């Protein structure tokens, strides 16, 4: 190594500016910071949603059960009345018109509508 190289070795390239590290770190996508309260709020909302879901399911089952009971009772009443009126399609059709339907219930499971002329049971 000659004298000139020794002079060179007294120097070095300058270091980075102080703000470079901050600029680079600032460019990294930060994960959103969530407070403890926010985590509790989320957990509470989730629990409430689960409870509501379970309650809605139970209420739905009860409504379906009640609707099914009413439907079966009405079908029995229509058949019994139709038989009292003499039986036959016309008697059962008349009975179906007379016996009141349960509110928002499903259609009767017993088909009492005439096959000809009407094209289907009339409600």
């Amino acid at each position, binding site marked *: 190594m000659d004298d000139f190289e020794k002079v*060179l070795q007294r*120097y070095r*390239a300058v270091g980075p500016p102080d703000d470079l590290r901050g600029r*680079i*770190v600032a460019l*990294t996508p930060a994960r959103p910071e969530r407070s403890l309260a926010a985590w509790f709020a989320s957990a509470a909302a989730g629990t409430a949603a689960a409870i509501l879901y379970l309650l809605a399911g139970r209420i739905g089952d009860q409504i379906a059960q009640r609707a099914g009971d009413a439907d079966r009772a009405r079908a029995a009443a229509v058949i019994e009345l139709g038989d009292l009126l003499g039986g036959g399609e016309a008697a059962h059709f008349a009975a179906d018109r007379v016996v009141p339907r349960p509110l928002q219930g499903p259609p009767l499971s017993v088909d009492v509508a005439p096959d000809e002329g009407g094209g289907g049971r009339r409600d």
Partner: protein
Amino acid sequence: MSRDERSAPWIADLYDRHGAALYRYAVMLLADPAGAADAVQQVFVAMLSRAAPPASADAYLRRAVRNACYSMLRGQRRRPLVDVAEPFLELVPGQSGAPDERLALEQAIARLSPEQREVVHLHVFEGLTFQEVADLTRESMNTVASRYRYALDKLRAQLGARI
């Protein structure tokens, strides 16, 4: 919680371990501190697409900074050469030099080719052997050694008796 902890933690850690050396390397390649900051920042921004730091971070980052600098230099070739705007050399702590020595050396180094500045930096300032420089730059050791010799001849010719 500080921003460092919330950000990809390895980016800050990687910068702490390699940032200064990468910046000094870029400064000598470009002879431009502002451009060096842009090159280093560009490399770290590109790192953000990774889920984890590269296995051989030092070699990987050096290559990335080198590529970024040469890419910037290719873009500068269309522009006229300008004087050194900001100082890019400093005395090593504990060393002393004449007041105008740094400036003269800086101007002479700025007139070297980027490849010559690179080999001067790696061999003189970082203390790498010619073989290590050759491995990094993917040149033959003879090319690196002759490039270094030409660089020093050019510096001596420019500086003459000033140093």
